[in-house]
């Protein structure tokens, strides 16, 4: 029974271009008991973590997604005729982290936190769809409110906002820097 379910789920993840969430899987597989779906997902994850496949099952943005094995990157790039994927500029990354930690946030607030105007990098982030507009703040001028998008999570391989670097991780890094400097 689970074997059938496993293969169905596997094919659904394969077809999906975006991370497919557990809730969506349950909705599609409504003729199976939800608990069975959960079990099958877990088994599928286990079998993928065990075998040495060129395809990996990743938990990303609250869903499941097939990605290629990192070690295969050079050949994938060759096939796609890609030199490298563009990275975010430091300014854009800084703006993005501020939004991630302080969301929901307005442009003025971001700029104030950075000490530098963030208009340009915010535009870049919107174009890359790593950030989305979620409304307007009820304050003078009704400024737009920004949040990080689901694409932000999958871009960094995060499952949810809880996976952002934690206070402990940040403190450890700062401690290391202090010792080094």
């Amino acid at each position, binding site marked *: 029974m689970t074997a059938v379910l496993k293969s169905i789920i596997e094919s659904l993840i394969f077809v999906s271009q975006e991370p497919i969430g557990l809730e969506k899987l349950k909705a599609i597989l409504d003729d199976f008991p939800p608990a069975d779906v959960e079990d099958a997902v877990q088994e599928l994850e286990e079998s993928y973590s065990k075998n040495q496949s060129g395809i990996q099952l990743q938990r990303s943005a609250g869903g499941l997604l097939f990605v290629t094995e990192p070690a295969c990157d050079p050949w994938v790039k060759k096939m*796609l005729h890609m030199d490298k994927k563009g990275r975010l500029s430091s300014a854009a990354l800084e703006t993005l982290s501020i939004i991630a930690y302080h969301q929901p946030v307005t442009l003025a607030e971001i700029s104030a936190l950075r000490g530098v105007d963030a208009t340009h990098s915010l*535009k870049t982030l*919107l174009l890359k769809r790593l950030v989305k507009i979620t409304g307007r703040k009820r304050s003078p001028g009704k400024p737009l409110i920004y949040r990080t998008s689901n694409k932000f999570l999958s871009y960094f391989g995060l499952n949810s906002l809880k996976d952002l670097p934690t206070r402990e991780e940040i403190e450890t890094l700062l401690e290391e820097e202090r010792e080094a400097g």
Partner: protein
Amino acid sequence: MDGSQPYQVKLDVFQGPLDLLLFLIRKKKLDIHDIPMALITREYLEYLERKEQINLEREAEFLLIAALLIHIKSQMLLPRETVVDEDTDPRQTLVDRLLDHQKIKAACAILRTKENDQMLTWQRGFLPPLEPLDELEFIEVSLFDLAEVFYSIMQKRKQEDVKIIPGKDFSVKAKMDEIVQYLKVHGHLDYMDYFDRQSSLEEALFSFLCLLELIKTRIIIAVQESLFSPIQIWLRQKESSS
């Protein structure tokens, strides 16, 4: 000054004034919780003076923090009438900002390694999707965007002599049906194109009102793939499948 060239390069390393301040604090091995304001202000201003070419926009941001430093120092010097309790150190807001900035910087470093890891994996979605069916992928356009584009189209057609009104009647119902029918057949329509094709200014104005009505009743949706890309009109998914 003979060393002006290297400084120029070095300043670009600093994203903003807070980075420069953190750098100076580290260089002078200062305690971030107990910054000697006179020293840090002097160092900071010296650094700014060394910068020869002035980019006004960036300069303003650096000067703003310089003003803040001097303001804090003056507050510390002035005698106060009320007894100062320990908690109200004038430096506190600056320290908080620096600490927060330091954390963001560290978070950036961690995210950068995650980005690097993620760069090595490829997903199927990376290849261009076959059909742009996913409504969520688009940014919904606001009324102001619609109005702005409409206005620019109308500007183009301003030469048309509106004194002569052809006296043709338009029906809201018929026009709306026409738009929906077109969408059912063609999937979507290009907002700019659509108005360019209208025979008269009057008809274009009328169609614009019909489009707004259809958007309001949630039958169609105005979206764009990304900011500043052409606005497209789509049927809402529910209506198109039924």
